[in-house]
């Protein structure tokens, strides 16, 4: 009867919210030198950015092991799950999705066989968190796996994420630069706006200042067709609130603000603010 929802820590869904919604979060790992921290469990967002500012070397990240997923799936089966929907960050940005598949395909025979569907969200953070939160609601309401999955895919297809970064340096060093490579040669300091398409980082614009970047993002949001939902992810209160203020000039609905976790912080750097916009059904979104 019950479908259970699994995601990873890059969804940036807070622990208590996940617990309340019945979502299982499998954490990625962040390394500062040899010290390993489970994202969101052993290292929260605020501590991460403090560490990042103090650290001489840049942190690294790693995907959850298949064993971590097996553990999560096994526990859910034991708790009586009839099916599992496991939604993860873009497979082009991380091996997490692959790890989850490996875990499913190699579950020991001792675990009762149930359907486990694994989705590559082709997105990240607030770009996928709303789809996951809705899925959890739908699961509680008793919807079946196929139905929930279809709704998740539909929600993801209508979601577009835009982020303003302080610098592309962290994206570049993490090897996730993608199409935003086109912006790398810039001799002038800019606050690049990037997005994701087909799961990869793409360039959008290169405003010179933060205030212009926020204003541009608000304009881009306004230019999108009718909007069903908007949420923000921030690396600190200041950038998040500045972006929120601009967004609120063009959008008056509810505007939840989440914290970017340690893994996303590692790959985007300090001073990152992102907005995810879900277009209304029937209007075009990306």
């Amino acid at each position, binding site marked *: 009867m019950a479908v259970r929802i699994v995601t990873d820590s890059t969804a940036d869904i807070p622990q208590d919210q996940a617990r309340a919604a019945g979502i299982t979060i499998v954490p990625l790992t962040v390394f500062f030198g040899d010290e390993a921290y489970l994202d969101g469990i052993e290292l929260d967002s605020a501590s991460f950015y403090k560490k990042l500012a103090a650290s001489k070397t840049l942190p690294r990240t790693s995907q959850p092991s298949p064993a971590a997923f097996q553990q999560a799936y096994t526990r859910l089966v034991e708790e009586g799950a009839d099916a599992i929907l496991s939604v993860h960050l873009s497979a082009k940005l991380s091996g997490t999705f692959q790890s989850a598949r490996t875990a499913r395909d190699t579950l020991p025979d001792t675990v009762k066989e149930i359907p486990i569907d694994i989705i590559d969200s082709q997105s990240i953070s607030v770009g996928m968190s709303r789809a996951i939160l809705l899925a959890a609601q739908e699961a509680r309401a008793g919807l079946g796996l196929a139905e929930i999955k279809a709704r998740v895919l539909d929600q993801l297809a209508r979601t577009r994420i835009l982020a303003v970064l302080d610098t592309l340096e962290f994206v570049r060093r993490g090897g996730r630069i993608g199409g935003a490579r086109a912006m790398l040669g810039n*001799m002038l300091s*800019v606050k690049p706006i990037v997005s994701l398409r087909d799961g990869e980082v793409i360039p959008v614009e*290169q*405003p010179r200042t933060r205030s*212009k970047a926020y204003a541009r993002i608000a304009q881009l949001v306004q230019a999108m067709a009718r909007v069903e939902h908007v949420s923000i992810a921030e690396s600190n209160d200041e950038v998040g609130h500045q972006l929120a203020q601009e967004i609120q000039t063009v959008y008056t609905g509810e505007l939840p603000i989440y914290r970017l976790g340690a893994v996303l912080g590692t790959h985007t750097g300090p001073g990152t603010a992102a907005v995810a916009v879900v277009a209304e059904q029937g209007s075009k979104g990306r």
Partner: protein
Amino acid sequence: MQNQKSYAQVRTQRLRRISVFDGQDLKKAILAGAAWLEEHRDAIDALNVFPVPDGDTGSNMSATMQAAIREIVASEETVAGTIAAKLAHGALLGARGNSGVILSQILRGLAQGLDKKQTFSATDLALALQEAQRLAYRAVLKPVEGTILTVVRETAEAAQASAQRGDDLVAMMQELVMAARQSVARTPDLLPTLKQAGVVDSGGQGFCTILEGVWRYVRGESGASPTAAMQERVLESSLPETGVRRGRVTVEEEFGYEVVFLLRGEDLDVEKIRQTIIDMGGVSTVVAGDEQMLKVHTHTEQPGKILDYGVSLGSLLDINIENLQEQSLAYAAESEAEHAAEQDRPPAKQIATVAVVAGPGFEKVFQSVGLTAIVPGGQTMNPSTEELLAAVNAVDADKVILLPNNSNVILSARQVVDLTSKEVYIVPTETMPQGIAALLGFNFEADFESNCKAMTEAATSVQTAEITTAIRTVQIGDVRVREGDYIGLVNGNLVIAGRDMKHIIGETLQRMNIERYEIVTLYFGEGITQRQAEETAKGIKQKYSQLEIEVVDGGQPHYTYILAAE
């Protein structure tokens, strides 16, 4: 009153009369005008309002004239309308600077007025000049009196009056020169900036100088004497040419239609067909082939007539008729092969950007922010329409956004739009920092239209200050400038002059309300070291601590510093 006195003098001094000009007469007259302009180029360059090195009107107009005569220098063509059309074509492509573009429009008006005419009379010329002034005014978005526009208009008015008095082109030319000179002399009364600078309008003077050269030729003073054919007609006094079509002046569309077809028949007479089509009103007519098969290419306002004629001779193949409203005469005439080649090419990259850039450092910056192609030039080296066109055609994209980065290049850039089959949009940037801001506003995700809009908006978000050295002594507004002073300009307007560079920079920044901005990019020019620039930046930072200042090697000529605030 004075006007009439000069007319009287002219008439008594007149040695001979000329009632009609043919193509060769027109050619020689224009060559003389171009030569006279070239001779006086430097003097016209010196008629500069601002004490900054900038687009020199004399050089720009002369370069445009030289391009105009390129195609007629060796031409034996006797049809006046054809010579005029070639002049217009050359000028269109060779136009440099705003004055060059306006001059090219004057020649285009002349060509339209003389369209299809074997010869022309004083009345024809008066009508053609009307057309010339109309197109000249249309070339600029906001016509300003006290410029070349006024001089052309008043000259055209004088031509009308002259044509009513008589049909002598010699007398008319003198009257035109007199009218133009007086008009030029009045420009400071119409345009206060001229009066303050103590100069007449340079573009108006350039136009007047061309007329003077023409007049010198007509009365036999310049090197070339009137041709034999012209002398033969000297004493002829005939009625004005028949077929003067006054309606021509109000005809809206320039070139009508381009008609191209293959004609298959027997015993086709190429010469006769060409002449017939020309007689039927075909312009730029090319008829090539042999007795069995030939290709006809012409421009006409009545394509039906030409096609009917073709059908009467044989069977028509590959008929192609295009409305030339959106396509230039110049381009269409030679685009046949190119068109075919273009269609074979793989689909081009969506959008390219082309910018006019001066200085090796600026070139690097522009490339680093994603510019596709550079046309070298700028302040003192205004690129011609042809150079801009070549760059637009060369980039691997069907849609091109063009950044002139100089107020004196915007008009020539606008000409490009009609000269290429590509879709071209001009973001009217007046400075290089505006161009960079526009490029940074380029949205990788958006389509052409959205980007044109976004980039135009982004360009206006930056304020440009320039620090340079005055090249002469002048008073502009309440700013007294001595030659050799450092001067500060904000968005092209002179705000301060003096001997102490630090002070000048400080004052200039204050005038642009620098405290309202977040980031200043300091581009240092040719002859300034990184160290000097860093020092300057430090000075600014001391005063405006909240500003972020970025020092960039611009390498631009003439301008010690270019500052962009945003």
